[in-house]
């Protein structure tokens, strides 16, 4: 099984030079650590920044400069600040090439649930509903199963959904999956994970091609 860093590392394979990318809170944020040498990508933070840089050195934090996770960050040459309407304007207009999000559940038609667990505290959707409704290309980083072993790749979401039929690809701790009319399409297995393990861990429709390579890093 992949750990969080490995999930992020595998997602980084999907990056292409020149992409504008929005990384959600959690595992998606780690993807920034695995941008291939020599490749330029520009990170969008929906609170109003294009060109997000690394964390500041200790003592150089600027309270006016944070990312969407409210972490202190820095700029890089070419960074731009803008207001929240323009930020979601460029998201809505499809200018962000790739969005990486966490999820609680994904359905085999691409529905995603990642904002609310009824009965528990409701923190709010933040920008997640805007992102999933508008992004051209959404990759979900997630655990394949809950702690009690229930599949989170489902035939339909049980939690309140964030957006309809929007997820294009899932990278879980067990494998990599496209989502198309066949449901989850198994592209790669995590090292040491069998197809049978993945079949058993997936409640939604799963298409298994004849050849399913083990992923490489």
């Amino acid at each position, binding site marked *: 099984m992949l750990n969080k860093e490995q999930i992020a590392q595998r997602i980084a394979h999907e990056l292409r030079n020149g992409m504008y990318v929005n990384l959600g809170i959690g595992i998606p944020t780690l993807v920034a650590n695995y941008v291939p040498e020599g490749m330029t990508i520009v990170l969008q933070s929906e609170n109003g920044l294009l060109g997000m840089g690394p964390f500041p050195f200790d003592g150089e934090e600027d309270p006016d400069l944070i990312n969407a996770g409210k972490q202190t960050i820095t700029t890089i040459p070419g960074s731009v600040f803008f207001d929240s309407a323009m930020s979601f304007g460029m998201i809505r207009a499809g200018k962000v090439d790739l969005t990486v999000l966490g999820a609680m559940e994904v359905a085999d038609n691409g529905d995603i649930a990642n904002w609310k667990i009824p009965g528990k505290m409701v923190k709010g*959707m933040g920008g997640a509903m805007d992102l999933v409704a508008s992004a051209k290309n959404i990759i979900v980083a997630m655990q394949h199963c809950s702690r009690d072993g229930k599949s989170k790749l489902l035939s339909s979401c049980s939690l309140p959904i964030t957006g309809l039929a929007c997820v294009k690809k899932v990278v879980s701790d067990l494998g990599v999956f496209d989502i198309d009319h066949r449901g989850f399409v198994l592209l790669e297995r995590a090292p040491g994970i069998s197809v049978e393990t993945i079949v058993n861990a997936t409640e939604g429709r799963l298409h298994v091609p004849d050849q399913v390579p083990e992923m490489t890093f």
Partner: protein
Amino acid sequence: MNKVVQNAQEAIFDIQDGMTLMLGGFGLCGIPENLIEALVNKGLKNLTCISNNAGVDDFGIGLMLQGKQVKKMISSYVGENAEFERQLLSGELEVELIPQGTLATRCMAAGYGMPAVFTPAGVGTEVAHGKETRVFNGKTYLMEHAFDSDFALVKAWKGDTQGNLIFRATARNFNPLMAMAGKITIVEVEELLPAGELDPDQIHTPGIYVHRIFQGLNYEKRIEQRTVKPRQD
């Protein structure tokens, strides 16, 4: 054309119980600290607050929640605040959660005189309940209405005596949008300058949208998530 007031207390003299206020900021970044303090001191009640977040327990809008001044919050994310959670679960506080881009765009719509806008955010979710939907080019959108608020409370970096504003870094966020959207817009700035001191090409909010302005005091600018990397040396 006298927009300059002395301080936050004077600026909010006509805000009353039960009114609807917009408050700028994202998390604790770019919040109108002086104005929030004045609202707390004045003890106003039954306020409806439109703000992306609700502060933390002991800072920002959290201070107003401590004083039980807020009847309803309209926000996109409120997860940093235990007192908020308590009031919500006890039924003391109403909360309307809306997508962050919808929040921003409904402010802009008010400032641009557009009564409604279309966004795909929330289609098919509980956010869509009771809202009109419409299909354009095969994609479904929700119709969302411009916000109608009594006052907008805004924090800018620099401002001039005509109300022209410049924001700094990601402290911009919702501030210029709310500045445009308030029936009455009150702005606190870190530095208040005479008209003519700001470059006309670089003003984010034209003064026509601003009714009152003052230089704030004692900015704390609390950081919510201090993330740093170690120095190499």
